[in-house]
């Protein structure tokens, strides 16, 4: 099955960026959120964590961001422990909700990471405007979040994640709450940003179609306990455009990924 999906695994890759070795996460209530996770992510990859709810994909993402501690095992990001990079400016994070400060303008929301890094407003102006331009919101710098639609709020959130010019972008089901039209559009936006900025992206989703459309590698996870069950390389199919979305290759990839995902659901049934 994986052999079918590995359309072309030999795409040239950058150096190793993230290494997870024997990572284990158990919460205080005894729930094992992630069990023995081993994963290597190279610079420039677009990785999806795909799986049913409760499979630990968000937990894994938050551990990579340094927002959650690791119970056992080790994570390194560029050779450092998560959260140890200077000023945290090297990682961008996009949450499921836009998570904007309602009391601040779009400009100030995007400015926040630089401000926390000690930059003055005047020094940051160009960077903030550039980030807003990259998501097409230049005209809305002075608007407040409540004046924006759901999709626009999400784009502000992406601009905020990009304003520090991070090398790593972590996205936790960012488009799950949006309508399909908006999601397609933002999918394309994210792909463009990934290519233009040479980002490494980890994208958590429970949508097979989204993961196949976006990623160069899909990491499929199963629940109870959360664990990686398979990895499917999709690096061969480029460029990712609406044409790819309508191609037989895309349909075939979706079929393969769906089948792999269904297998994880079967596991759950056997367990119980």
């Amino acid at each position: 099955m994986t052999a079918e999906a590995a359309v072309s695994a030999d795409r040239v890759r950058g150096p190793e960026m993230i290494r997870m070795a024997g990572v284990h996460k158990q919460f205080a209530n005894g729930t094992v959120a992630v069990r023995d996770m081993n994963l290597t992510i190279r610079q420039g990859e677009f990785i999806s964590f795909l799986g049913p709810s409760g499979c630990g994909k968000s937990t894994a993402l938050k551990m990579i961001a340094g927002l959650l501690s690791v119970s056992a095992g080790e994570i390194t990001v560029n050779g450092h422990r998560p959260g140890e990079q200077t000023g945290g400016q090297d990682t961008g994070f996009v949450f499921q909700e836009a998570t904007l400060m309602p009391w601040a303008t779009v400009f100030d929301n995007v400015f926040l990471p630089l401000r926390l890094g000690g930059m003055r407003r005047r020094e940051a102006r160009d960077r903030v405007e550039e980030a807003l331009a990259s998501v097409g919101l230049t005209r809305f710098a002075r608007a407040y979040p409540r004046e924006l639609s759901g999709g626009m709020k999400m784009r502000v959130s992406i601009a905020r994640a990009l304003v520090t010019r991070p090398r790593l972008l972590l996205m936790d089901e960012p488009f799950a709450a949006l309508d399909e039209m908006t999601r397609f559009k933002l999918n394309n936006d994210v792909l463009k940003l990934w290519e233009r900025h040479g980002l490494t992206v980890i994208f958590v989703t429970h949508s097979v179609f989204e993961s196949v459309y976006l990623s160069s590698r899909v990491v499929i996870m199963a629940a109870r306990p959360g664990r990686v069950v398979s990895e499917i390389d999709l690096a061969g199919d480029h460029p990712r455009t609406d044409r790819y979305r309508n191609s037989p290759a895309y349909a075939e990839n979706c079929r393969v990924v769906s089948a792999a995902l269904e297998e994880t659901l079967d596991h759950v049934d056997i367990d119980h």
Partner: protein
Amino acid sequence: MSTSTTELTAAAAGIAASGSAAEPDMRRRIARGAARERRLRVLMPLGALAIALAIWEGLVWYHEVPHYLIPAPSRIAATLASDFGSLLPSMWFTVKLTLLSLLLAIVGGVALGMVFALSRLVEISLFPFAVILQVTPVIAIAPLILIYVHDTFVALLICAWIVAFFPILSNTAIGLRSADHNLRDLFTLYQASPWQRLRLLLVPSALPYFMAALKIAGGLALIGAVVAEFVAGTAGQNTGLASRILESSFRNEIPRMFAALFLVSLLGVVIFLLTSFLSKAVLGHWHESEIKREN
């Protein structure tokens, strides 16, 4: 979500309509409607108040009610004018007492609220004291405070403070904890200092709660000040409006009583308007509670 979409659609419609001939006319009509609504918002309550006073005046004249039972508004106004010299210092006293106790309630409530928000342990240890202070009627504690504290003004201040303190404390503590969890994570990710976290995240998140508390505490401080003074029953030069009311009641000077009562109410209304204005100024541009919705 639905409101923001409506606003956007409205904004888009505005952009689309600009340049067309009908647009200035429509804008004028909307502006006229808004101005009319603003006028009505002031005129309607004033009109209702004037009518109520007129009915009062008319009934008193028609039934020839003696002024020592219910004085007519005109008589109260006349008393207010003639006794203004003696009522003004009393009003100033009550104003001082109320505002000072409110200020101390804010300082104490916010400071302790911050400590509560920082340490759950301190909160569970000290919260019972705050609750006991709050639930025990101030009128029952006031005599004790008046015995223990020599300076009457300070004793009154403590009474008013006790009443106004609790809402500020409890709302500040809740407000500081109410910051969005993802935003907290974001501040952690960017390694914000504790000071940055407080100033840029926790304080703005707590503001709506604090403002709600301020509106309540403003009124409570006045009630506390008046009640405490009633209990103290102080007389003489350096006393507040409550003493004037008591004094007039002893002397059966009912119009003067009404005049003092009017000043107390006026003070309460002014405090309410000030805190409402402040709340609108601070939250108006972002918080749901102060945003005017179009329908």
